[in-house]
């Protein structure tokens, strides 16, 4: 951390050398992670990631990154604000609330599965479940709840599950993400998500970072790409393109298709780990889902 702060004060040439050094250190470190202080490494990742965007968009307040591309593009922000004035996802929130309160056939409800009766807890997802040794997202937890109560799981990309997720997010507005990496096993999932994020894939040979870090804020085909910082905070979303609600993993699948990579299963291990990594990187930002997107 101190190293990074010092490099910031140096001139450009020196910065490059230092950053390369850090980079090499990071590479060397990941090869031997079990022996290392993974918490410090995660913290270093968060600092590097967030300061990348601070440098790229120096005018943008940190708290604004919860608003996706609208944090950095004034023209589209104006249209977005008009949508948010009376957003189509209000129907989803109502429908989600009705579903949330409807008892299962055994008489129990979703509220019985979650802390605080399921209210104001969106920011606690995803988390690493040490017993199951896997990342649990909100959508997975909702379906786990259903199955524990003898109900069939819901489809993961849209519909009832997206509405439930929208309602649960709506009760958590303003709460901050503080996603933790508590163990070596958690660090393994985190690292897999990180590797996914930086790996180039698809016929177009793009990584998440290529579009949402390197060229974030620039035009890629017809659209300005959003900053990766804050990606999970506004989901689920009502997308104008879909003309309906969709979950984060639906969006991941769409992104993968855009670069002509075959999407991986929603709520499969790869996307959950990616969501975990992205949520850790977005630490400190507020929940503002559901929201509307283009």
């Amino acid at each position: 951390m101190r190293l990074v702060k010092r490099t910031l004060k140096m001139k450009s040439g020196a910065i490059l050398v230092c950053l390369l050094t850090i980079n090499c250190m990071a590479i060397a470190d990941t090869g031997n992670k079990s022996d290392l202080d993974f918490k410090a490494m995660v913290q270093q990742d968060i600092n590097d990631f967030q300061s990348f965007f601070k440098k790229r968009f120096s005018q943008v307040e940190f708290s604004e990154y919860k608003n996706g591309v609208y944090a950095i593009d004034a023209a589209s922000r104006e249209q977005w604000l008009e949508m948010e004035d009376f957003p189509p996802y209000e129907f989803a929130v109502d429908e989600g609330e009705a579903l949330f309160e409807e008892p299962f056939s055994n008489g129990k409800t979703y509220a019985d599965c979650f802390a605080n009766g399921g209210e104001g807890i969106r920011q606690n997802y995803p988390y690493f479940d040490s017993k199951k040794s896997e990342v649990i997202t909100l959508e997975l937890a909702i379906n786990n709840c259903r199955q524990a109560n003898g109900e069939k799981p819901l489809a993961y990309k849209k519909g009832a599950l997206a509405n439930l997720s929208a309602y649960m997010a709506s009760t958590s507005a303003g709460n901050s993400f503080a996603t933790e990496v508590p163990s070596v096993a958690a660090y393994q999932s985190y690292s897999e998500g990180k590797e996914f994020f930086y790996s180039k894939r698809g016929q177009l040979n793009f990584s998440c970072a290529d579009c949402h870090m390197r060229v974030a804020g620039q035009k890629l085909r017809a659209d300005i790409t959003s900053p990766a910082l804050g990606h999970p905070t506004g989901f689920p979303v009502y997308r104008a393109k879909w003309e309906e609600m969709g979950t984060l993993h639906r969006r991941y699948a769409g992104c993968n298709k855009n670069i002509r990579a075959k999407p991986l299963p929603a709520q499969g291990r790869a996307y959950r780990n990616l969501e975990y990594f992205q949520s850790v990187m977005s630490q400190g930002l507020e929940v503002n889902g559901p929201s509307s997107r283009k």
Partner: protein
Amino acid sequence: MKIKAKVKKDITKVKMLIKHAMETGRRKDQDGNVIPRLYITEVSASHNGQPVFHAEVGQAVSKDPYIAFSFKGGVAGDMISITWIDSSGATQTGEAAIK
């Protein structure tokens, strides 16, 4: 249907969001069959029973239509009633009190 009505300095602004697919007849479903056209054609609003707004709309209106209008003379607590009808003749009425 969702209705939000707010009065400020004698001007009441009424905003509505109607749940409706607004099918243009140009979209196809997953099996490639054309989804028949079905869209809202008219929306009427009344304030304490007096007509205050009427719109004719076409298929160019977005899915889940949003329309807003303003009128004078509303007071907090007054009822706004909105009714729409679509190309199949289906209709729905919603009500909200002015805030």
